[in-house]
């Protein structure tokens, strides 16, 4: 009957290239393990495929047309309406809320404060290595430790570091596939095309002298970009593994909801596009899963580890049993009412139109109905 903790893991730029989403190439054993204990949404979509608008949208539960944030240059509370956020709602309901790393997009879009103090009980924590996020690095080598003076930084219970280059070894270039449709489709309207200008500005991409806006990237270089992306995914997986393993260590796995999401997808050569910035499914489709103790998986027994760390470098990785899955289309916008409902808080009412004057309401649906499993309800162990 005690309130459940909530651990919300928000990954930047992660498309569902994960084992639990059927990807045979990518090594993501720790996220797959989380999925095996979770309810996984196969068809979840972001509302706008770029960081700040997407994050503000799902953290406030409003569409970009309501937050009026389509770029990076305004703060919704001033620019659109004083909308509440997910962490703010929990904070106002007695939770201690904490932010580590990039939850809100930094800068004016979160008032240069990660929306503190509205959303957070203590000041948000940022690793000092974050300032290297946009440091001068090559496109196909975003993970070189030699470029990062501070590889690790510790805060009690927090472990953050850059993605080491060694993870590229998991993806030999000779095994690297290309996008199945690397050409710009003939019938694609020019307005729909994303010319991936930020990628073109990377030093090593500039050296390729690509024609703008449609010039394709040479095939060998495409393989290297894909190799680096997948290496980053596996690195991220180890960080998620350490984090979830800590839940076990602190015996919190039986009292913590874990939600795992990304802010949007990423094109890896599909339709001749790279990065995000479009309406294609590859840039809007995101991983979305919820672990709810005793609901999506049995409560761990005393001493049992639900999330033991798995090393993606282990030569033989056991196949993880998939967990429960939902194929219905859902929106990232649903995160806010769903977390509220799962935690036992009152789900905010649907927003009127317009809703600029309403501090707390939801434009998305609660997904809680998907967590009613008939077989579990009939299972005396789960009922207990």
């Amino acid at each position, binding site marked *: 009957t005690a309130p459940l903790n909530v651990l919300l893991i928000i990954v930047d730029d992660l498309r569902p290239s994960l084992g639990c989403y059927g990807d045979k190439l990518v090594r993501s054993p720790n996220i797959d393990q989380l999925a095996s204990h979770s309810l996984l949404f196969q*068809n*979840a*979509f*972001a*509302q*706008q*495929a*770029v960081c700040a608008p997407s994050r503000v949208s799902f953290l406030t539960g409003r*569409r*970009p*047309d309501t937050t*009026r944030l*389509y*770029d*990076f*240059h*305004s703060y919704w509370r001033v620019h659109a309406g004083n909308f509440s956020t997910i962490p703010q709602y929990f904070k106002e309901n007695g939770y201690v809320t904490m932010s580590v790393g990039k939850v809100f997009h930094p800068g004016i879009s979160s008032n240069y404060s990660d929306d503190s103090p509205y959303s957070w009980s203590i000041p948000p924590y940022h690793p000092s290595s974050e300032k290297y996020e946009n440091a001068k690095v090559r496109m196909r080598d975003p993970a070189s430790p030699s470029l990062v003076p501070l590889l690790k930084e510790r805060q009690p219970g927090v472990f953050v570091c850059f993605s080491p280059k060694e993870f590229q070894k998991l993806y030999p270039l000779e095994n690297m596939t290309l996008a*199945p*449709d690397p050409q710009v*489709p003939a*019938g*694609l*309207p*020019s*307005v*729909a*095309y*994303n*010319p*991936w*200008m*930020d990628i073109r500005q990377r030093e090593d991409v500039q050296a390729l002298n690509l024609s*703008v*806006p*449609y010039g394709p990237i040479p095939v060998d270089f495409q393989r290297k970009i894909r190799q680096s992306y997948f290496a980053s995914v596996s690195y991220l997986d180890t960080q998620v593994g350490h984090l979830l393993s800590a839940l076990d260590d602190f015996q919190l796995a039986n009292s913590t909801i874990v939600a795992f999401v990304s802010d949007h997808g990423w094109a890896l050569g*599909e*339709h001749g596009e790279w*990065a995000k*910035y*479009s*309406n*294609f*499914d590859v840039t*809007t489709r995101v991983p979305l899963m919820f672990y709810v103790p005793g609901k999506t998986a049995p409560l761990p027994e005393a001493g049992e580890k639900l999330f033991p760390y798995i090393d993606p470098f282990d030569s033989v990785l056991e196949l993880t049993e998939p967990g429960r899955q939902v*194929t*219905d*289309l*859902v*929106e990232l916008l649903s995160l806010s009412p769903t977390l509220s409902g799962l935690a036992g808080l009152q789900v905010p009412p649907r927003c009127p139109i317009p809703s600029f004057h309403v501090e707390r309401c939801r434009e998305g*649906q609660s997904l809680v109905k998907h967590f009613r499993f008939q077989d579990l309800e009939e299972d005396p162990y789960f009922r207990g």
Partner: protein
Amino acid sequence: NPRESIAYSQYPRPADSPQWNSDKPSLKDIKVMGYSIRTIDYRYTVWVGFNPHDFLANFSDVHAGELYFVGSDPLQDHNMYNDSQGRDLPRSLMP
């Protein structure tokens, strides 16, 4: 209820053709907004005129459209929008 299995997305553009700020246009430069609706069967997108001063999209000012059917074209490479013109989607499915 068809609205229960629909996902909407949108993306702004400064112009009809790709240019240096097409990826991340500032609000003042947004001229076109692409609104998408997705179902399990298709994605339908209309790129319409957008006024950044009053934040209003003009659905009478259609710049371009996209229509992809999941069953026959899961990767979204064959835009069927021009083949579908004159056959409006049900109004209940519009954003």
